[in-house]
C-alpha cells in the first residue's frame, strides 16, 4: 500500500499527506490479517519440526499399566500425560505432535506434485487449445469422475501402505482440479493483447507461457493451493481412518480417530483430540486461503 502511494506521489512532487494517510491505513491492514489462522499454522509447523524436542514421551512407547489414562484435568488424570493415554498406554499428546509431521509432509508432497502437474497441464491445455486442450480436458474429466476415497483406496491397496503411497494417491486425485481451474484462467489471459504483442515481438510459445502466462495465473494457483491443504489433510486422515493409510505404529491423526472410535463411550479423548486437531488445522488453512484470495486480488487491494 505505502509503496503504491510513494510511486503515485512521485508524479506530483513530494506530498506530506502520503505519510499521514499511511499510518491508519496500515494499522487497518494489520487488523485485517487472519491472525488466528497464522497462529495455528505457525504452531503446527513449529510442532512438526521440533517434535522430538517438544514431545514429552515417545509416540510409540507402550506402557500397559498406564493405559487409558484420562487427560490431566479429568479425575484420574495426571500431568505426566496431559492429554491422557490410549489403549496401549501411549501418550496421546506425543502422538498428536508426531502426527502433525505426517499431515504436513503428505500435504506438502501431494500439493507440490499434484499442483505442479495441474499447473503445467492447465497452462499447456489452455494456451495451445484445439485438440491438445480437448484431449487433456477429457483426461481431467475422467479423473474427476472417480470417487476420491475409492480411487485412493484402490491405489493404497495396489501400491502397499506407506507415506509415499498416500502422497501418490492424493497427487493423482488433485492434479485434475488444479488443471481445470488454471486452464480457465489461461483462456482469459491469453486473449489479452500483451500475449499477441509478445508474439509480434518474436517470443516463442514456450517463452510466452513461462514469462507471460504463468505469473498471471499464479495468484489463482496459490489460493487454490492453500484451499486444498485442508482437503489433502482430510483425505490423508480418511485413508488412515479406513486403514489404507500410514501403517501403525507411526502416529497419524486419521489413524488415531479410527483407533479411538471403539472407545468413544469410555475414553472420549482418544477420538476427540485428534479430530479437533484435524478440524483446527483445516479451518486455519481455509481461512488463510480466503484471506490470500482477497489479498492477492489487485482490485480489492487498491481500494
Amino acid at each position, binding site marked *: 500500500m505505502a509503496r*503504491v502511494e510513494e*510511486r*503515485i506521489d*512521485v*508524479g506530483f512532487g513530494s506530498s506530506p499527506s502520503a505519510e499521514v494517510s499511511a499510518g491508519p491505513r496500515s494499522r487497518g491492514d494489520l487488523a485485517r490479517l487472519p491472525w488466528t489462522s497464522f497462529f495455528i499454522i505457525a504452531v503446527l509447523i513449529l510442532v512438526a519440526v521440533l517434535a522430538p524436542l517438544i514431545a514429552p514421551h515417545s509416540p510409540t512407547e507402550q506402557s500397559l499399566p498406564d493405559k487409558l489414562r484420562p487427560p490431566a484435568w479429568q479425575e484420574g488424570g495426571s500431568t505426566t500425560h496431559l492429554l491422557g493415554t490410549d489403549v496401549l498406554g501411549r501418550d496421546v499428546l506425543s502422538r498428536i505432535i508426531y502426527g502433525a509431521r505426517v499431515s504436513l509432509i503428505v500435504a506438502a508432497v501431494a500439493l507440490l506434485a499434484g499442483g505442479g502437474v495441474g499447473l503445467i497441464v492447465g497452462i499447456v491445455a489452455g494456451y495451445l487449445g*484445439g485438440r491438445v486442450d480437448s484431449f487433456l480436458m477429457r483426461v481431467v474429466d475422467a479423473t474427476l469422475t472417480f470417487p476420491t476415497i475409492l480411487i485412493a483406496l484402490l491405489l493404497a491397496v495396489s501400491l502397499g501402505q506407506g507415506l509415499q503411497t498416500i502422497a501418490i494417491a492424493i497427487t493423482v486425485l488433485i492434479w485434475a482440479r488444479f488443471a481445470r481451474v488454471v486452464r480457465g484462467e489461461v483462456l482469459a489471459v491469453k486473449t*489479452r*493483447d*500483451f500475449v*499477441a*504483442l509478445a*508474439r*509480434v*515481438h*518474436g*517470443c*516463442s510459445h514456450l517463452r510466452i507461457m513461462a*514469462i*507471460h502466462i504463468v*505469473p*498471471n495465473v*499464479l495468484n489463482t494457483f496459490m489460493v487454490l493451493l492453500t484451499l486444498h491443504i485442508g482437503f489433502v489433510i482430510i483425505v490423508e486422515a480418511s485413508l488412515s481412518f479406513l486403514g489404507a493409510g500410514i501403517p501403525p505404529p507411526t502416529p497419524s491423526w486419521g489413524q488415531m480417530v479410527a483407533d479411538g472410535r471403539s472407545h468413544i463411550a469410555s475414553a472420549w479423548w482418544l477420538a476427540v483430540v485428534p479430530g479437533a486437531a484435524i478440524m483446527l488445522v483445516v479451518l486455519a488453512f481455509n481461512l488463510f486461503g480466503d484471506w490470500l484470495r482477497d489479498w492477492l486480488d*489487485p482490485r480489492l487491494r*487498491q481500494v
Partner: protein
Amino acid sequence: MNAAAPVVLEVKDLHAYLYTRWGVVRAVDGVSFALREGETLGLVGESGCGKTMTGLSVLRLLPEPAGRIVRGQVLLQGEDLVRKSEAEMRRVRGRRISMILQDPQTSLNPVFTIGDQLVEALRMLYADAAPALSHRAEEALRSVKVAAPEQRMRAYPHQMSGGMKQRVVGAIAVAGEPRVLIADEPTTALDVTIQLQYLTLLKEIQARTRLAMLFITHDFGIVARMCDRVAVMYAGRIVESGPTRALFRAPRHPYTEALMASVPRMEASVERLPSIEGQPPPLHDLPVGCRFAPRCRYVDDRCRREYPPTLPVGPAQEAACWRVEPSPPSR
C-alpha cells in the same frame, strides 16, 4: 512521399483465409500494396473488411489454427516472408517488423512493472547485461516522451494512464529499430487530445528512423493527418488506392465516394449525414461480381457478373470499378 525511396515492404496478391466451421472466410482476398521507406500508408475500411487480418498476415500471426496464407507474397526488403520458417519469422518480428495494437489497457502485462517489460523486450534484441538493458529501457521511455522515466520504470501498468501505456507499447515496438511498423488503430482507445499527441509522436519517430508505417484505421481525420497514401479496403480487397490528397479530392470508386460523403464536415451543415445502405457481404459468402454491387448506387449488370480489374485512374491512383475511365499512368 518520396517516390525515389526504396520499397521496404511489398505485398503481392495476398490471400489469407480463415477456415471456420461456418465455411471459408476470405478475410484477405488478393491484396497488393507497396510501402516505401519513411512512408505512411493508411489502410481504411469498415469493421470486418480485413484490415487487421492484412496486418497480421504480414507478420504471419493469423489466428491459429483457422488462419492460413493461401497465396501471394509478402516481400520484406526483397525476402518473401510467406516462405520463411517459424523460427526465421521470430527473428523478423520485433526486429524488422513491429506492431502496435488498439487497446493499451491489455497491451501490457499487468503483473510486471513497466521497466521489467521493457527490459524483457530488449533482452530478446540485445545481448546486454542487466544494467545496460535497464539503461536502454530508460532511454526507450525517454524517446517516447514519458516524463520521469526512472520512476516510471518501477510503475505497474494500472498506475499509468491509457496514453502513457500506449507510449510504452510504442517504445517496446520501436525498440528493435524495425523497418516497418504496423499500427492497428493505435489511437482508437485514447481520447482526442491524447490521440493528437500520440500521432505527433509517431510522426517524430518516423522522421528520425525512416520507418515505414502501415496505419490501419477507420478515421479519415487521422488518415488526412498521418498518411502519405491511402488504400481503401472493402470485403477483403483494396478497391481504391492513391496519394491521400488526390484520393480525398477526387475519390473514383463509388465506395470511397460514399465513405467520404459520410464524413461530417465543418463547412457544410447538413440535416442528415448520408450513409451507405445495407451491410458489407459476409466474407464467407461473397457475391460473384463486384463485392460492393449490392450497395452501389451506380450498379449495372456487368458489376454483378464480373469483378472489375484494378486500373490506374490518375497519378499513382488506382481503382477497381467498371465505371472508371482508365487514364494513362502517371506523367
